[in-house]
């Protein structure tokens, strides 16, 4: 008898909860969402490493269930030893445009999923200076990659207030990519002429998959 009453109680709350679920975003609302990461380390041997990355998303809800998204990501990663001996610096930038779909599930909670198309560019500059003791004095390369890709992600959203919402990413979606890479390398010998080489590579990948990826984002609703 007691368990039946408890079931009725739960059922009543579910009905109330369902009526409480309502549109959490409205057409015309715009928002910003971003991330910033910085790591820098030094040591007394002469190595210094730095890794910086940031992203900003701008979105506009075109209905209560979908928004247009524009996303910019930038990152820089550098490993240097005495600046003249070894360096490996990588710069990446990506711009993507896409659509986010949203479905309220309970109270202020909802599920979201994004599909994006983007272009990206990266440049890696690498250099090693061996000094004058060996056959090769130094080796330097510059590596460029340009690509287009179709990707997405999804997870849960919580509308905290009129101005703020939290997103909890649960998965990444990779669909397809095209890339072109060119690399120029030069080897400067201790004696003789400088040797150069050029590498060109084109690659494609259509391998749709979902991978679990967890993260929390803060969304600021502008209007």
């Amino acid at each position, binding site marked *: 008898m007691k368990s039946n009453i408890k079931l009725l109680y*739960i*059922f009543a*709350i*579910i009905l109330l*909860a*369902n009526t409480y679920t309502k549109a959490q975003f409205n057409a015309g609302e715009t928002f910003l969402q971003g991330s910033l990461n910085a790591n820098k380390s030094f040591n007394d041997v002469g190595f210094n490493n730095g890794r910086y990355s940031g992203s900003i998303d701008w979105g506009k809800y075109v209905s209560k269930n979908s928004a247009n998204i524009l996303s910019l990501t930038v990152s820089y990663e550098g490993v240097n030893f005495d600046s003249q001996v070894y360096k490996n610096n990588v710069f990446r930038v990506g711009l993507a445009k896409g659509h986010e779909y949203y479905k309220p*599930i*309970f*109270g202020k909670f909802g599920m979201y999923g994004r599909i994006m198309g983007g272009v990206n560019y990266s440049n890696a500059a690498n250099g090693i200076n061996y000094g004058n003791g060996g056959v090769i004095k130094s080796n330097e390369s510059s590596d460029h990659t340009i690509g287009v890709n179709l990707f997405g992600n999804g997870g849960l959203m919580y509308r905290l207030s009129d101005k703020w919402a939290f997103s909890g990413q649960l998965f990444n979606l990779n669909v397809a990519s095209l890339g072109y890479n060119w690399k120029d390398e030069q*080897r400067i010998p201790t004696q003789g002429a400088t*040797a*150069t*080489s*050029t*590498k*060109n*590579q*084109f*690659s*494609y*990948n*259509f*391998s*749709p*998959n*979902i*991978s*679990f990826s967890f993260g929390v984002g803060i969304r600021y609703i502008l209007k």
Partner: protein
Amino acid sequence: MLSKKLPLLVMMFIMISFLSKAQYEKGSKFWQVEGTFRGSSSSIKNNDFNFYDAESNSHSIGLSFKRAVFKEDYLAKGWSVDYNLFSGKSSVSSPKNESQTYIHNIGVGYFVDKFKPLSKSLAIYGEVNGKIGYSLVNGSPIYTNVDGNNTYASDSYNIGAGVNFGVRYFLKKNLFINGETSLLNLNVSHSTSPSKQTNVYFNTIMNVSSLSISIGKSF
């Protein structure tokens, strides 16, 4: 607050699951396909006589097809066929030589899927499967063999069984996408040429963080 909401969410999922029975009821059928295409093409040019100019390219195609019938509510049994092809080619200058490799894999299997709907359009499932397959590797090496033969070929047979976990989401009434990953896999392969060799592979929780996607239709 959250502890109060969680049981409600669970109850909602259970209630909604009764709405989604039609897609998983006895007599329903489904098919699904999966495809992957990958490749690259590259060239290296040197102005240094110590290093050769080189070119290479590789391409791979993977295709998979499954068909099943629900023998009981939420329990489907069916067969699968898959084919994978890899081709690779590389060449060097001075002296000019090139090699080519083809790898073909073909397999057929039988599987049993047990579904658990979580909502009207979302379900999770567990799969048990068994497969047999044949693999052929042939091509030409970059340098001619001592006996003058400039082609080679080897083949192998394999048999395996596995347990998979998947998620099915219905985009429309009959159109769905699947995300699937392997939890456990046992595979035995045996080759007779160029020499007799048997390999046994046993893997658990392989790539569980990544789900391959397929698309399908129920009817």
